[in-house]
């Protein structure tokens, strides 16, 4: 495989894995985070504490957990997802979901009570109420998704453990940089590092522009 082809494939897989994980995590975390953030009673507090613990979950630990789950000898072994991109996505969803959930919950809970009251008085039902609050918190929720994607694309421990860094199969930018450095392939490593940086810059500036449009 040519150097350029190899870099292209690694970059594409990195984007696919991090993007898919972020999308799935967003679909799980934003609705749940909104519902929990809207609750004002203390029952949500315990959950919030658990979440903030998960928030700090070391990615490597998530990787280990998912590895043990997906290994042939593990409970989900028959699915044969170890050392596959889907397995990596599962590990990253475990890492990213608490991050998006936690931030969404806290930005939704800081939306003024009066927003809910006003929407209620104007005739909103529960769903419309949630959407209204979510819309007011849009900048914060977008930040949550940005942070989640940033964590996913730069994460290395979990994708290494669960993906196995198989050439042409589960190599991503971060894991390849690690093995490149071990092999003293510094030029290749730097090229991948620059791509990682550019990707982050492009995606962040894109999201930043969306975020700007959602300002009051």
């Amino acid at each position, binding site marked *: 495989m040519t150097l350029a082809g190899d870099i292209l494939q690694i970059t594409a*897989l990195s984007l*696919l*894995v991090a*993007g*898919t994980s972020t*999308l*799935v995590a*967003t*679909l799980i975390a934003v609705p749940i985070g909104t519902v929990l953030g809207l609750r004002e009673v203390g029952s949500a507090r315990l959950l919030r504490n658990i979440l903030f613990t998960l928030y700090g979950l070391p990615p490597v630990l998530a990787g280990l957990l998912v590895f043990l789950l997906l*290994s*042939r*000898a593990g409970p989900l*072994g028959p699915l*044969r*997802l*170890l*050392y*596959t*991109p*889907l*397995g990596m*996505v599962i590990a990253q969803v475990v890492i990213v979901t608490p991050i998006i959930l936690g931030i969404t919950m806290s930005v939704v809970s800081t939306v003024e009570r009066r927003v809910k009251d006003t929407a209620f008085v104007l005739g909103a039902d529960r769903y*419309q109420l949630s*959407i209204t609050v*979510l*819309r007011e918190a849009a900048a914060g929720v977008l930040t949550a998704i940005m942070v989640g994607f940033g964590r996913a694309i730069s994460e290395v421990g979990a994708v290494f453990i669960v993906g*196995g*860094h*198989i*050439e*042409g*199969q589960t190599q991503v930018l971060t894991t390849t940089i690690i093995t490149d*450095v*071990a*092999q*003293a392939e510094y030029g290749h490593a730097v090229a991948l590092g620059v791509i990682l940086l550019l990707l982050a810059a492009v995606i962040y500036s894109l999201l930043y522009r969306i975020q700007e449009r959602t300002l009051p």
Partner: protein
Amino acid sequence: MHFASMRQYIVVLIIAAVVALAVTAYLSLPRAYLLMATTTSTRDTGLLPPMLRNFTLDTGIEVRYIAVGTGQALDAGRRGDVDVVMVHAPALEAEFIASKDGLCRNQIMYNTFVIVGPAGDSAGVRNATSAPDALARIYDNRSRFESRADNSGTNIKELALWSAAGLNASSFGTWYEKTNQGMGATLTIANERAAYTLSDDGTWFAREPTLPYLGLLYNRTDSVLRNQYSVIPVNPATHPGVFSERALAFAQWLVGPRGQSFIGAFKVHGHTIFTPDGTGDC
């Protein structure tokens, strides 16, 4: 109509997620390729990619691999996560076969362990009379030494050599550093830290140009320094679902004329790295 448009956003998000998942799932379809766990030293020499390509050309069987330490490679086999292992630690391999995790064992090739270190060689390893003597000199001088400490074949050999020198590595001081990493990474660290380390000559020759501060200090072909590589298909009786037939075909190809002649002809920077000695019961 912002409630309707919000619904549209959600639908777009869901579609995007489903498409992304579908692509990921497609790439994750039950693999048709043979999955091998092997050691970092075979990857780091650069032998694997061209050799596997030849095997695929001959048999139509695609092979992918994860490169880890011998201990971890055997463990991947023990968990049934891979179809075949290619390792270099005969004692551990015997256990692997005895526990019915391995089906059979073909020895493929060997190379030689060498001691490399700072070109200045303050411990005088160049003048050593044997491998244990070389390590004893490093010990006497308390010269910095990088141990892979990863239960790899190289690491196991290193510990055996310390024992042969009458030394107990677990009691060593801070000069004895444990990298917990593969051969290539450990050589990189030794190069940066002006330390001695034990390497296989294959990885050394492959990496030599990138290691300016290290020199080859002890490379005699004592029988104790022989580094025997073997291939072991994972036992389908213990681990149903592994690609046993393909693994056997791979093991047989490696010891057959095509595999053996490829290994014998493989050169890195002008050095022949592996000596083929294929035989076995697979």
